[in-house]
């Protein structure tokens, strides 16, 4: 397992492997190939997605399977849902998760509900890949983290990887899955590198990963914020505080057990979620622990989240918007009742 590639490459590779394995897998979205029907364009020069994540796929799989769509999210997302329920296994790319505003109905009222409304007689094996996350200087309409919205919708599964390894394995699991899966990709993690095996493997949906063991407190991170948590944990270790870092990886289903048993061990919980603070994953996990894990809690549950504001453009404001290791350390210091706050 010595090969090191980027998150972006890991995702690209997962799509290629899935498409080789199953001829019913197609990829559709805006410019996922790029340059459709441009005469002079060689497919190796095609865009491959707005940030190049799907580059090269059209060369191997052709334009019948890598489908550029018009800017019509409702149109192609609804098409993906029905294609899935009639025999294809589409991967639909919603370029930025913020654009769910243009196609929520197709997800919320169509794809997610077909199976139930139809008494179990339909299945919708679609994967929606979408970019999220702040820190890219992309401002209010291109930087949100809307996974809570999808997590709240029965019928959907929701996955947010924090490493290239997980991204590849979870994406393959998502494509294999017979339910609709929303797969979140943090645009600021595309260049993150890590060890990724070459072949086909899956990471099970619904299984959290303890990314670091510890006994003094539990930090649950969502997506990129797992890395914030790990960074904070590193600093804390230097001060003799051992944080356990849990990466749920899949938000729906959520592996409550792993979280609860970590808290049973550490008796303290901090959750890091870069989404806006109201009704997000941090509140969700806090509520679960405040119910089922109440007896093991020795201290208040702390949430490190974005503030209740849109994502600002200005770099210093955006930096302040996001959770940071400092903020995590600050919360931990409050939690452990240290009077003077810790610093890096």
């Amino acid at each position, binding site marked *: 397992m010595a090969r090191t590639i980027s998150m972006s490459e890991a995702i690209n590779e997962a799509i290629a492997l899935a498409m080789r394995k199953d001829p019913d897998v197609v990829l559709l979205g805006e410019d996922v190939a790029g340059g459709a029907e441009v005469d002079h364009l060689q497919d190796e020069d095609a865009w491959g997605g707005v940030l190049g994540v799907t580059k090269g796929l059209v060369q191997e799989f052709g334009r019948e399977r890598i489908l550029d769509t018009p800017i*019509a999210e409702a*149109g192609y997302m609804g098409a993906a*849902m029905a294609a899935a329920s009639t025999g294809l296994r589409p991967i639909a790319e919603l370029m930025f998760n913020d654009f769910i505003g243009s196609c929520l109905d197709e997800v919320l009222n169509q794809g997610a509900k077909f*199976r139930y409304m139809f008494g179990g*007689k339909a299945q919708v094996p679609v994967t929606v890949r979408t970019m999220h996350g702040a820190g890219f200087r992309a401002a209010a309409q291109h930087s949100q983290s809307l996974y809570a919205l999808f997590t709240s919708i029965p019928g959907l599964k929701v996955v947010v990887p924090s490493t290239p390894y997980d991204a590849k394995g979870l994406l393959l699991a998502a494509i294999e899955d017979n339910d609709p899966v929303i797969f979140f990709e943090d645009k600021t993690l595309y260049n993150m590198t890590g060890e990724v095996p070459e072949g086909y493997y899956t990471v099970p949906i619904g299984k959290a990963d303890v990314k670091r063991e510890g006994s003094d407190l539990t930090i649950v991170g969502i997506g990129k914020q797992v890395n914030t948590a790990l960074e904070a944990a590193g600093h804390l270790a230097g001060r003799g505080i051992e944080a356990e870092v849990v990466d749920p990886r899949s938000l729906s289903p959520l592996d409550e057990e792993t979280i609860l048993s970590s808290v049973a061990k550490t008796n303290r919980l901090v959750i890091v979620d870069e989404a806006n603070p109201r009704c997000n994953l941090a509140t969700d996990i806090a509520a679960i622990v405040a119910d089922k894990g109440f007896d093991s809690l020795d201290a208040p549950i702390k949430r490190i989240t974005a503030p209740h504001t849109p994502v600002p453009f200005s770099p210093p404001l955006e930096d302040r918007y996001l959770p940071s290791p400092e903020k995590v350390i600050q919360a931990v210091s409050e939690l452990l009742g240290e009077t003077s706050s810790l610093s890096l």
Partner: protein
Amino acid sequence: MEVLQNKGVALTQDQARWMYRKMLEIREFEDKVHELFAQGILPGFVHLYAGEEAVAVGVCAHLNDKDTITSTHRGHGHCIAKGCDLDGMMAEIYGKATGLCKGKGGSMHIADLNKGMLGANGIVGGGFPLACGSALTAKYKKTDNVSVCFFGDGANNHGTFHEGINLAAIWNLPVIFVAENNGYAEATPFEYASSCKTIADRAIGYNIPGVRVDGKNVLAVYKAAEEAIQRARRGEGPTLIECMTYRNYGHFEGDAQTYKAEPEKKEHKQEKDAIIQFKKYLLTQRLLTENELASVEESVIEAIQRAVRFSEESPYPKEDELLTDVYVSY
């Protein structure tokens, strides 16, 4: 087998009987649902298709079980024309366990994928993208199946109309977009809400064929659908067909229909009635005899009575059904 020609429509006796039967099934089914709702027996929002039978039947006459349709909130007629089981449909509207969707969907969500019926849809405009999706499957898998998207004049102003038809056009998908222009969206007239002179006009913006036909004339619908469906099967892409029709009942059960003018209501139940017209045609053309028609009528009435009995006698779903069928696995 005897074949009759009329205005370019060639119906065999079997086809004629099938069409007459389906139109009657729809009418009787809806009249019965109307009655049951008025008695407080049926719950929910119920939108009846009575009056529009010629559209669903004229189109679905050309489809097989592998062809798919998307439907609307006013979906019972589409279901029946596409071959859904009447017992299962009625039981679904009752919310019974024997319903086509085990009672979980209800009137607005009846579906039967085995029959190519992709679901009634409570969301106006919901069907356009879905029809593209099943057509994409057909095209990708190189079958010659088609998708039909039924939609109302109100849906014609929703964004999904535009996105769906454009997508079907650029991808050359085998979709037939069938507008059921019954003059109203709830209480809002077509002319008020739609800037186009005809829905068919809008086809120009997608560079596809668009026609308007008399949707009360099942032969006119049949013929327009035949051309469009054959084009689609040949891989020549989508068509937009606008059928001028009328709903006999209100928008939903309970609607006082104050917005409808009296003469208009009357004529649609009499000289313009699609079933009366078709029956006259069948008789004058000697396609079916009075006796044959009567036996269809009798058998339909029985079938509807049976469906009601079946539904009444069926159990409600068990309580734990609440939690199943959300996922394939979770």
